[in-house]
């Protein structure tokens, strides 16, 4: 049956398929460095939670300090402070807080937004800002609020109305002294700029547009090869972002410049709870973020998406060439020919009608009558 064999397209069995998308990437862009900062360091705006006593709130130049002791309790106990906070998250999407909490207590940060007089919580129990453990050391917390709120609520909120910071502890038969210090509270905006030239950047973005996924074709990993110029000692963290899902890749330390990159990020791990920077302009992108130091240029050599296919597929080349021929036949032969035939027939009919209507009076006249 060789003739039949020739007429059949080749078949690819289920499994991994690498797709070269190097040509599909958008021009690289970056977060300019330093950021625009909206400092919310007026500590006197903070208030102790209502109806609770035994805790002290001190304001100073260096920050806000909450201290006290959580009493013995057979149930988990908590205490909170809050303030009104009106921030345009579209303008300043990244929240930054420098906080120091004693190891004996846990803590969390909760934002709210006001819509038509109703206070809407923007947090969820499992998000990156809630139920954190105190470490006794200063901690940098930096979170993209637009992503966090959309993950928590399923909606886009572009402003906040208030914030609450709480300290918590599980059930305990002893009182628990604690202290919480907020040393910095800011909202940041890293403007996105073109990164076609050497510059001083906080993060670099390689946009991949919108990733196509179907029930039979799922994306498993992404790979990028290239070089990045960065200041010596820079720590670079690679991420792959697809919609609201953020996957962390390898961390690079710049001991020389440029640094050769061979990034592979698997999508099988759980999505990161928080992302510290701007979301990309596109739905999907590979992002290099500096934990310290400055990036100056990224050269991308190769980007590929690795899909897992669950179904048997015919050869795309054969299908493509076959579809190409069909397209040519349809658009250059069948459709124009149909239009020409219809047009010609209509013209012929119109002429015939005109001729018959022109000849009718003459015929009638010949027979001695007019219409």
């Amino acid at each position, binding site marked *: 049956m060789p003739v039949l064999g020739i007429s059949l397209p080749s078949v690819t069995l289920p499994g991994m398929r690498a797709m070269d998308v190097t040509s599909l990437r958008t021009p690289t862009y970056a977060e300019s460095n330093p950021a625009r900062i909206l400092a919310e360091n007026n500590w006197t705006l903070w208030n102790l939670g209502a109806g609770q006593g035994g805790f002290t709130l001190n304001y100073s130049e260096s920050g806000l300090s909450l201290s006290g002791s959580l009493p013995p309790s057979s149930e988990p106990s908590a205490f909170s402070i809050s303030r009104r906070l009106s921030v345009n998250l*579209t303008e300043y999407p990244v929240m930054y807080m420098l906080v120091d909490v004693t190891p004996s207590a846990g803590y969390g940060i909760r934002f709210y937004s006001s819509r038509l007089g109703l206070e809407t919580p923007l947090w969820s129990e499992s998000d990156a800002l809630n139920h954190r453990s105190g470490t006794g050391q200063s901690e940098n917390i930096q979170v993209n609020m637009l992503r966090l709120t959309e993950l928590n609520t399923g*909606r886009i909120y572009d402003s906040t109305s208030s914030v609450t910071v709480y300290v918590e502890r599980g059930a305990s038969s002893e009182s628990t002294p604690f202290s919480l210090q907020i040393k910095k509270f800011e909202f940041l905006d890293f403007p996105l700029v073109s990164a076609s030239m050497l510059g001083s950047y906080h993060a670099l973005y390689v946009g991949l547009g919108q990733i*196509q996924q179907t029930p039979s074709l799922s994306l498993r990993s992404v790979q990028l090869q290239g070089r990045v110029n960065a200041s010596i000692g820079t720590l670079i963290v690679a991420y792959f972002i697809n919609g609201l899902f953020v996957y962390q890749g390898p961390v690079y330390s710049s001991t020389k410049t440029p640094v050769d990159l061979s990034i592979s990020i698997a999508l099988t791990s759980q999505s990161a709870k928080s992302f510290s920077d701007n979301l990309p302009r596109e739905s999907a992108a590979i992002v290099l973020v500096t934990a310290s130091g400055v990036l100056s240029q990224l050269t991308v050599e190769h980007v590929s998406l690795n899909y897992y296919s669950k179904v048997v597929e015919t050869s795309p080349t054969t299908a493509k060439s076959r579809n190409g021929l069909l397209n040519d036949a349809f658009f250059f032969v069948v459709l124009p020919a149909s239009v020409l035939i219809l*047009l010609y027939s209509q013209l012929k009919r119109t002429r015939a009608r005109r001729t018959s209507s022109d000849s009718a009076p003459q015929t009638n006249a010949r027979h001695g009558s007019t219409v």
Partner: protein
Amino acid sequence: MASRPLVLFLIAAGTVFGNSTGTFPPIGDVNLPVLYGLARWDSSYYLGIATGGYAVFQHGFSFRPLFPLIMRILYPLFPFVDVKSAEVLAGFSWNLVALGGTAVYLERSTRQLFGPGVANRALLLLAVFPSSFFFTVIYSEATYILFISAALYYLETRRVLVAGGLGFLAGLSRPEGFLVAIPFLVKVFFEDQKVRKLIAGLTVLASVPAFAVYAYTRTGNILAPFQSEASASKCTILCFFNNPVYEVATGVLPYTINLVAIVLAVIFVVRPLVRGTLSTKLFPYYLWAFVVLAVVFYSGEVLSLARFALVVPPVFWGQAEYSSTRPRFFHGLLIGYSIMLCLATILWVNWYPML
């Protein structure tokens, strides 16, 4: 217009009570109680382009700029909600206005071509066509059909250059809009005002290079709109018939509504063309409809076939004229379309691929 509250109710019901299937909804809901279901699927492109321009998307240039531009102009009228919600309210309000305008122009032009009976029937069929919910949601169909209807009306009332300008705007509303140049150019063969019709037809066609030049100024690539359209992933009728068993097996109603709607549309456009019963006045419009339906049937996404047929007035003229002497057929069509409209609206909200 009276059919819109029903559509709105079904969208709200679909979003509030409908269960997502895992991969849906495809875009984050905007912060609008009840109305957030208006922005789904390709709405994200229109909303994104309106505020962020074309650089936001890889396939953004598949979408024409007029509807996003209108939303961009109108959304500051809704300062009491966030930007995305304001865009949705702006798009929704504009769509209602556009639909009202469409009803006026389409009724007038159909009345002129066929008489009042067919005009009323055509409007009724348009209102309950299975995909007519696209006139309400954040898609460009309402904008497109407004300019198409207005262009046809002014063409029939001999204000040909005005019609050409409106056709140009239709070309900036949807990718297939430039094809409305066909009636202008074909009328050159059959009617007077030949030069004006030729100029108007070329004006409509100019929407294609105009958008290509705009794409060039943004990307340096004059072919960006065409490459963008060609590279978008879609399942056409060829893909459907390549593997019909898979397509049928993966959905409860895979493409049934789309296929029924497009088959009916094709029959009522092709039938008078093949039988040669059309007057010289009507022939150019039916020929245009034939080309549009042929192109979208061959190369359009199967799940959007009913949407493509929705914005082609001769589809409704053909059905309305045929049913003018067959009241039972007309009632059956109305009832069938209404049922499919309800089902399609609910399916679109969360389960578009089943439509």
